[in-house]
């Protein structure tokens, strides 16, 4: 990953045409030049030219980016605004440290899977005992974003699972979110892969992919985590490492950049070449389906899948194989406003972006909303609750698994 001062040339390519103002979800709510790519790029430019200090206000504006990459895609000179913003955040982190809450999150909570689970366990306990009801209103609203948590994480369930063996092996990366919040998605993935004759290799030594660290410029921890994950897969002998989380997928695909120019570079790039989204892996291995269910499904494209990994048709193919009635929503690839922790730190803006998404979902009349990222799913479920709707949010592979069951009885 290039440091900020090496991105000057790219930075100066911004011609301030304003194309970003037409697509930026944050700008659509904030409607101020500081909340869109050309403004943020200008702030960085003035800083590098020595006309502006690293101020808290500037940092705030840089943080107010979802990293959805909509501006990059529509930018006539294709300025890599997402990279420049991440580099600027890293520059802030080096020179000014991280704000306290973020520091605790990055340095203490997210570095070990057990700690993240512990935090969520405390939340479960607090919810069960009614303590969360005592929270002040603004915290209560934010706490509400997280859905009801499952009794057991996937890691806890894993011991009881009899994984099938086969000559055809695929690696599977355990995302923290799916492990803790949606273990059923991982179970669905295993069931489908095994049905297709694969042995699913799930190293438990993996840790957080480092998405938040990368995003907020904590490159030191991002590298540490990346390396642990690369090592965790190093003796598994798999050629493919699958993930059901769009954010983990795109983060792991950036490991090469993270180690560019370092001794680990080659190994990191070799790891990157194996990482693949599960929709993409499955899309050309599924039978076409004649039997249709009466369920109408729509799909939300996670930014980290559609614009970071360029995976657009694969999840739709998976849905087609699940035999559902598919109805495309307007602006399917527009960000839901989740942005990892953006919805917690910028709740009001995030909700306005989400409202537009939910409105588009509603227009389709779908009873199921599919998406391929647990972070989007948390946000979308919150939006559906907020709007008093009863739409269920699922990963495409959960629908696929259901259709397998329906067609052949329970094969597992």
């Amino acid at each position: 990953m290039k440091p900020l001062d090496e991105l000057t040339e790219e930075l100066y390519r911004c011609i301030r045409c304003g194309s970003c103002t037409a697509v930026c979800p944050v700008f659509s709510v904030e409607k101020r030049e500081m909340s869109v790519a050309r403004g943020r790029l200008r702030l960085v430019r003035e800083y590098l030219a020595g006309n502006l200090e690293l101020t808290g206000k500037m940092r705030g504006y840089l943080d107010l980016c979802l990293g959805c990459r909509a501006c990059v895609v529509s930018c006539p000179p294709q300025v890599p605004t997402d990279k420049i913003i991440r580099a600027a955040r890293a520059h802030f982190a080096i020179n000014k440290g991280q704000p306290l809450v973020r520091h605790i999150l990055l340095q203490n909570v997210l570095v070990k899977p057990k700690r993240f689970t512990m935090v969520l366990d405390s939340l479960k306990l607090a919810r069960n005992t009614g303590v969360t009801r005592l929270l002040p209103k603004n915290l209560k609203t934010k706490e509400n974003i997280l859905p009801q948590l499952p009794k057991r994480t996937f890691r806890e369930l894993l011991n009881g699972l009899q994984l099938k063996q086969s000559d055809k092996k695929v690696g599977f990366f355990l995302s923290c979110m799916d492990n803790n919040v949606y273990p059923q998605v991982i179970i669905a993935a295993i069931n489908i892969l095994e049905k297709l004759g694969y042995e699913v290799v799930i190293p438990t030594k993996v840790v957080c992919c480092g998405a938040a660290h990368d995003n907020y410029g904590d490159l030191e921890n991002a590298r540490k985590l990346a390396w642990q994950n690369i090592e965790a897969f190093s003796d598994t002998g798999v050629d493919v490492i699958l993930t059901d989380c769009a954010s983990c997928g795109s983060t792991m695909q950036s490991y090469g950049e993270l180690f560019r120019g370092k001794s680990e570079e080659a190994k990191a790039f070799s790891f990157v070449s194996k990482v693949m989204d599960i929709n993409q892996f499955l899309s050309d291995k599924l039978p076409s389906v004649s039997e249709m269910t009466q369920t109408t499904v729509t799909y939300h494209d996670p930014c980290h899948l559609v614009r970071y990994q360029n995976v657009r048709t694969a999840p739709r193919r998976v849905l087609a194989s699940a035999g559902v009635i598919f109805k495309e929503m307007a602006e399917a690839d527009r960000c839901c406003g989740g942005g990892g922790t953006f919805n917690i730190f910028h709740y009001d803006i995030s909700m306005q972006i989400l409202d537009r998404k939910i409105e588009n979902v509603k227009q389709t009349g779908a009873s199921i909303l599919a998406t391929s990222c647990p972070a989007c799913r948390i946000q979308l479920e919150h939006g559906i609750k907020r709007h008093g709707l009863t739409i269920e949010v699922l990963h495409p592979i959960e629908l696929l698994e259901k259709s397998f069951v329906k067609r052949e009885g329970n094969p597992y």
Partner: protein
Amino acid sequence: MLDKSFISSIQQCVGRENVLTDKEDMICYSYDPTPNHQMPEAVVIPNNIEEISKVVKLANKAGIPITPRGGGTNICGNSIPVKGGIVLAMHHFDRVIEIDTANLCAVVQAGVITADFHRQVEALGLFYPPDPQASSMSMLGGNVATNAGGPRGFKYGVTRDYVLGFKMVLPDGRILKMGGKTVKNVTGYDLTKLFVGSEGTLGIFTELILRIIPLPESKRTMLAVFDGLLDAARTVSAVIAAKIIPTTLEFMDREAMRLIEAYVPCGLPVDAAAAILIEVDGSERDVPIQIKQVEEVCRQFGAREIRIATTEAESNQIWAGRKAAFSSMAKSAPTLYVEDVTVPRSKIPEIVKTITDLAAKYKLKIPILGHAGDGNMHPIILTDESNHDEIKRVKQAIDEMFKAALELGGTLSGEHGIGLDKVKYMEWELGETGIDVMRKIKQALDPKNIMNSNKVLPPEAVQ
């Protein structure tokens, strides 16, 4: 410097949260798509016309300059607060108030995004033709203030032809209402036409009454390829002489096609001298006849190849190149000077030759696009603002280009406006008398010269 008491009185007008003064914020309102820049001292984001009126009155009293800002997408330096003072940003005026299908007009606030308006009227089977390049991010108020054009201008006219009336705040803070929902209106001087295209120097538009028309049933697209520039230009004239008025007659020269092909390969003939993208629209019955007629004319005048789209996908394929033109150029150089010299249609070959010669003389890359139907050329100078020597040559080339356009009976600007960048050429086109009349109008309405100062008219003319 704006003093504290002035700022606090402005805050009282529009609310504290809508007045910005921090340096970070000023940086973000210091630019537009031109290389010009200047930080304002305050950014004010008003919510309604009364607030604007109050702010302008206060500013007028204190002699503080005001620069109105819409989408900030103009390409002549219009949004730059050259004299500091206040930038007045129109983002809160984003409501389509009414689409009146009985009277075929719409009442909109000035901050509505042009493309959003297009979508809304087209959903009702109606049509608002002006389509400037920046329509997905420009504001209707800005379009009116700059009298924006676009590719459909030849058949359907420009923004001016669709403004029936408006509300605006004058430089002294008074509110002016002009026109209404009637197409006919000859009550008094035609001030609507005076204010449309005044580039924010005579006041701030807040509400517009725009004419809309029925959406044509059908359209067809074709691409005609030529080995000679002269053939291409003659074809344009011949099409029009045959009494066919295409919606679009988009000209691309070889240099432009090469850049586009390098950026997104879409099958443009990079060895040809020029290509013209032609689109006709109308009723289901007329369109096939029109396209046939155009095809015949093109053949007669030496088109080496003609591609007529038979499906929407083919039409999109033809448009893909033209639509990627700006991006391909932006990708190939850090700084663009997008000009819009306009000449009588018959003079297109001469102006294209002049521009090509200037590019060679000053060692510059100048691909040319253009709305050929109305002689509106877009030479785009690809350069780098950090290369001072080259910028000097760019400026010399622009000087000569404008001189040539005027000699051919053309104009400095067909659709972008004068802003900051073309002020120094105004007298070439208007002469002393023309400048004097404009100055008198400006002085009558804005004696303190606070409203978008230094734009359109040379500063010394207004002092």
